[in-house]
């Protein structure tokens, strides 16, 4: 049994300790906002927060997440009013196909929580997610817009 705290709720699930967090979140807990893109920590589609750090859940075993505070994209979307980051994302019409965008937002959120006013270079270093649709210009603009309000 693995005990996970996800978005403030505790869950006990019967999975192997080495199961990647991604698959536990998506198919054991039904939190499917977090996406699968590569499975080898290359694309960032599966980005979630573990104790405030952005991690790639496809390559992060559930055992390592036990007892930690796990936050997924659903924690941003749950509120009635959109999160400031999401407002910026809507304003700049960031998503195209949208598939990479939950990971993109979680990576951006971790950056902005640690750095209120990131430079272009800070953004380049922190944001290593792949967007196959090429929404990069809009991602950069939205991060800058949201900076300071998070």
């Amino acid at each position, binding site marked *: 049994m693995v005990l996970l705290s996800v978005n403030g709720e505790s869950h006990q699930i019967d*999975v*192997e300790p080495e*199961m*990647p967090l991604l*698959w536990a979140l*998506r*198919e*054991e807990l*039904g939190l*499917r*906002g977090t*996406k*699968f*893109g*590569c*499975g*080898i920590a*290359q*694309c960032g*589609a599966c980005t979630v927060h573990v104790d405030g750090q952005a991690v790639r859940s496809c390559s992060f075993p559930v055992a390592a997440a036990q007892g930690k505070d796990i936050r997924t*994209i*659903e924690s*941003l*979307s749950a509120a009635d009013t*959109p999160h400031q980051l*999401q407002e910026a*994302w*809507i304003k700049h*019409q*960031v*998503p*195209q*196909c*949208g*598939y*990479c*965008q*939950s990971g993109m*937002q979680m990576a951006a959120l971790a950056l902005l929580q640690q750095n209120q006013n990131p430079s272009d270079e800070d*953004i*380049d*270093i922190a*944001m*290593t*997610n*792949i*967007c*196959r*649709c*090429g*929404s*990069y*210009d*809009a*991602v*950069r603009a939205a991060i800058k817009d949201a900076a300071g309000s998070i």
Partner: protein
Amino acid sequence: MGITRRGLLLSGAAVGGGLLLGVAGLGAHLATHNRLEHQRKSQSGSKGQSLSLWIRITPDNEVVLLVPHTEMGQGSQTGLGQIVAEELDVDWEQMRIELAPAEVAFANGAALEPFIREQVSPPGWAEGMFQNGIHRIADLMSLQMTGGSTAIRGTGWLSMRAAAAAGRAMLMQAAANEWSVDVQSLSTAGGIVEHQDSGRKKSYGDLVAAASKLDAPTEVDFKDITQYRIIGQAIPRIDVESKVKTQAIYGIDADVPDMKYAAVAPIGAFGVEIDSIDNDDEILKRRGVSGVYSIDKGVAVVADNPWRAEQAVRALKYSAKAHDNKAVSSESLEADQRAALAGELSTLFEKGDVGLAMADAGNQVNAEYFVPYLAHATMEPMNATVWQQDGKMHVQCGVQNPLMARKKAAKVASLDLDDVVLHPCTMGGGFGRRVGVGITNDPLDWLQQAVQLHQESGEAVKMTWSREMDMRTDVYRPMVLAQFRAGLENDGMPRFWDSRHYLATQDVAAPAPPYRIEHVKVRHAGEPQVVPTGFWRSVDFSQHGFFVESFIDELAHAASEDPLTYRLKLLGVNSSEARALRAVAEMAAWRSEADAQGRAMGVSVVHSFGTTVAQVAEVSRDASGMPKVHRVWAAVDCGLAINPQSIQAQVAGGIHFGLSAALYGKCDIQGGAVVQSNYHDYRMVKLADAPRVEVKVLASDGEIGGIGEVGVPPIAPAVCNALALLGERQRRLPIVV
């Protein structure tokens, strides 16, 4: 424009002429029965009244538009809504857009029309579809498709606009009848018909029942462009908010009762068949595993969690049968292409007399170019979920043409079409991977596998391909070798242009130079090779845009001319290529020499899918010789711009997509299979190496062009043309090896 009642109300597909009448017109005719049936059903079932197949108006005056095109990020659903809102004369807030069901009634043979109108013979991209047998009636009926940048051009402008304008006329006529006034004395705004003299008003929602009983007008007046309030506005896309909040449901998010998970591994080489699975006993003992299967193009495991299934399939040991394809490699394929180009050639395009011109041309330039196979690598890997419910087989997946997918699923399962329900989802990228037609192979192989696994296991199955499976089981953008020769006059301008490339193109326009050259010959040789090929964003233009725009640049250099000026000298001053080039040169503050920091600019222009895009890329090489693309400017002439923001996003996205391919993209073939497996060896441009892109949509009242693909072709030549100023010219892609 005259419009018949049937052409309008049934589909709009009959608007137009030429070959269209033989293709889409026929489709509309045969679909008549089914369409009427569907209209009746939709009128009885849902709230509100149908005005035509696509448009329903509710008592609350909400306009429901049923769009046959699935959403993969191109924003065409919003654009179609804008066109209808404009001609129907309702406010944007009144519009509600829904995806049309995967029914024959909504098949859009009209999607082909823009191509047919542009190219007299053969109809470009559609040519491939004819070759693939799509012209057969049965297949035509499945063309509920999204691809080839056809949604706005075909469905929207040619069909829905007419349906909306006629709808407005019918609503006004209904009011005129009720009030016994002349229809000329009425006006509309915000979904309300008003009689100015008396001040009487009535909403569309209150008029639609009467209006739908009227005959559709045979002539409709369209709004003048100066009256537009919604077309041309950067209306926020309807799909954005749900995607930001991750409420959009992709195929991979399927959740049905008692669902099991399937993982698949490729067998090893294209065309190879499985001989035996050697350790299934052992695999079946693993936790959660319920079945091991040998299926079309793969081996599969079904388990109670996707990770368990994937781990198990990776542990599966199997042997494949012997096959000649195992000897195939990139090298052997390229050698075969080169040999073919030295052999007998077919002429694709010819003008003047190249043979004669060649004899007395002075300075000759020769060049050979090469582009590799490319995978689509959509962000969401291929997947489908198949289950039984209420006596029918249900399929949930993201596809560019749902109806064709539904037919495919029915065929694989040996079921009647009526016994299959398809639930189309938002797609995590399409780029041609999720269409129902390929060049040599059927791209819906993944759907076939999912249906097979459902049938063999007897379970509700969600099959998800690993990235590795996805990259190694694609319908690839073809690898192409091309050879060019040109002769220059004394003034440096080209006297002849002679090119040969491997493989007939889907679109004859792609390899032909847009420039005014007296003697031109474009030839090709060869048959499709063993690697499966399909449509890849911008189709032939991704290869041939690179070749043609690189070679013209080489000629400019050979003539010691500024490549921008050289191109302009060879283009009509009012041509859309010249307009776009002048605009992009101004945006970029064009310079033909590298600056003090070692940054050089390269230019290119490609007309594809009815749209012209000119680009300038600013590039440098770092100390280790790695190229860095700093900025890209793009000028877009796509005719009337429905939604400038969507256009900018699509073109900028196309540039990053094309840049990933130009810098890093290749699928090498070894042992008859693709070597690359995931994003670590099939690299993508990321934010740090993504250039700043500036897109300008040129004001134009020309015919509407496509937008989803057109950003892609010019970027590779623009970057390589810049690199040529910094050292060696890059004639083989990718640039970084």
